[in-house]
C-alpha cells in the first residue's frame, strides 16, 4: 500500500532536496532578495543575473525543509532564460496553482508539477511558495531600481 505522504514527497522532490540545483552564489548578481518564514525558521536568498531583460542566471541558497529546498532548486532550473514578464507570469501561475485556482490549460509546469501534491497539505504551501515570493520580490525591486538586498517575510501564504 502506498504511503499517504507519497503525494507530498514525490521522488522528484526528494531528488531536488538531496541534490539541489542552482545553489552556487552568483559572482555578480543584478538583484537579490531574501525570504524567511519566521514561524518555522526557513530562510533563503535569491540572486538573479539579468541580461537584455532576460534572466540569464538564477541562484538560491536555501535552508529549510524538503519542500522549500526542492521548490527553490526547481525554480532556478525553470526560470533561467525567461524574460522578466515570463517569470512573473510563471510565478503567478504557481501561486494560483498552490491556492487551488485555475491556471491556463497549456501551462507547462515541468518538474514543478510534482509540487501540486503540496496543495493537500495547506500548512506546507508557504514552504513551496517561499522561493517564488522572494523571486517575484527580486524582480519587482529590479524594475523599481531599489537597493539589491532586502528581506521579506512570508507568513500567510
Amino acid at each position, binding site marked *: 500500500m502506498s504511503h499517504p*505522504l507519497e503525494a507530498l514527497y514525490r521522488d522528484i522532490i526528494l531528488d531536488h532536496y538531496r541534490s539541489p540545483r542552482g545553489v552556487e552564489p552568483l559572482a555578480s548578481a543584478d538583484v537579490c532578495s531574501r525570504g524567511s518564514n519566521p514561524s*518555522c525558521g526557513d530562510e533563503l536568498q535569491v540572486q538573479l543575473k539579468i541580461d537584455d531583460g532576460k534572466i540569464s542566471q538564477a541562484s538560491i541558497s536555501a*535552508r529549510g525543509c524538503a519542500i522549500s*529546498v526542492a521548490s527553490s532548486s526547481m525554480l532556478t532550473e525553470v526560470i533561467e532564460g525567461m524574460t522578466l514578464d515570463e517569470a512573473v507570469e510563471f510565478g503567478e501561475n504557481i501561486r494560483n496553482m498552490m491556492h487551488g485556482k485555475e491556471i491556463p490549460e497549456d501551462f507547462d509546469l515541468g518538474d514543478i508539477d510534482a509540487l501540486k501534491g503540496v496543495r493537500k497539505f495547506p500548512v506546507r504551501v508557504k514552504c513551496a511558495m517561499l522561493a517564488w515570493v522572494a523571486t517575484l520580490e527580486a524582480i519587482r525591486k529590479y524594475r523599481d531600481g531599489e537597493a539589491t538586498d532586502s528581506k521579506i517575510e512570508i507568513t500567510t501564504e
Partner: protein
Amino acid sequence: MTTEILDVAKIRTDFPILGRSMNGKPLAFLDSAASSQKPNQVVSAITNYYQNHHANVHRGMYTLAAEATELFENTRTKIAQFIGADSTKEIIFTRNATEAINLVAYTWGETNLKAGDEILISVMEHHANLVPWVRVCEKTGATLKTIPIDSDGRLDLSSLDTLLTAKTKLVALSRMSNVLGTINDVAPIFAAAKKLGAVTLVDAAQSAPHIATDVKKLNCDFLVLSAHKMLGPTGVGILYGREELLNAMPPFLAGGEMIDQVTFEKVTYNELPHKFEAGTPDIAGVVAFSAAIDYLNNLGMDAVQRHEHEITSYALAKLGELPWLTIYGPRDSKNRGAAVSFTVEGIHPHDVSQFLDSAGIAVRAGHHCAQPLMKALGTDATTRASFYIYNTNEEVDRLCKALIDLRSFFKL
C-alpha cells in the same frame, strides 16, 4: 506497559480527545509542552460556570455576582497555596505567562532600570522571557547579559561571578527549558543575586505543570506560569509577585476594576491584586483553572514528577539507540523535564513532524520560540516530543518505530 506511579489508563479516560484517531492511527499527543490537553473535570467546570453561576465579578450587589466572585477568588486562594505564596494579594491573573512577564517588564522594569544597569537571563530562555527584556533595555539603556549553556545543555555557571555583579538589577531565568528539558537549579543563583540587591523572576511556564512549585524555596520575587500548560484553559496566566514589590510598582493596564477614586484630573488605584487586573477577566477560565489544580493535587505533584522522570528516562534510552538521531539537552534524566528535542540526520525537522503526523503522532518542529538557543546549539530547528501525565511508554515506542519508518520513506 505503563509506569506504576500513576494510573495512566484511568487518567486517559478523563481526556476524551486522547481516544481520537488521527490520519487513521490512534492519536499519540506528544506536544504538551506547547499546551496540555484538558480533563473532563476542567471542561465541565467551564460549562457549569456558564450554566449556573455566571455574572461579572466584584462590585455586584446581587447573590449571583457574589457566587461568581467567590468562585473566581477561590482559584486565587488555590493558586497561592499551590505555589506557596503568603497572600492572595500576591497572585495576579493575566492572560498567560508572556503577559505576566510583560507586566513586570513594563512596570517594574521601566520604573527601576536605567543606563548602566544589567539584566541577567540565560541562553536557553523562551522568547517570552527574552523579548520583553530586550525592549526594556532599548527603552532604559540597561544591558542584557546571558548565562551560557554547556555541551550537555545545562547552565554553565563557571563565569557567574563576572555575569552577576552589583550592576545586576534583575535575574530572570526559566526553571525548565521548553527545548532542552533542562531543569535549572535557580534557587542558589537567585540567592546570590539577592545578596547583591537584584530582583529575581522565575519563568515557571514549563516547570509548574510537572514539578512542585514553592516561591519561598525558589528565592524568587516574581514567578509566572500559564494555566493551559497544566490542564487548565487557555487565556489564563499567573503573576506571583512579592507584595512589597507589587505595591511599589505602577499599574500596567488601566481601566475598570483597577481604580480607587477617579476624577478627570486624577486617579488613585485599587489595592492588590486588583490594581493589576483592569477590565473583565476570563472568569470562566479562572474558575476552571481551579479544577485543573485540584486534578494535579489529587495526583500529587511528586507522583506527576516521578511518572515523567520515568517516561523521559525511557524516551532518552530508546531514542538514544537510533544512531542517526541527535538529542539536544541533558542525556541524563536527572534534573530533566519531559521535553526531548532531537534532529534526524538528512531530514529537516518539519518533514520529520509531517511524517510523524501521518503516523498519528503529534510533535512540534521549529525553533520553539528560542532562536538564540537554536543558534547556540548550531541548528535551525529541532523536532520536540514532550510528555505529560497521560503519556505512556507505548507511545514512546510508536515514536521510535515511526522514526525508523521515516528513514526508509526518505530512502536513507
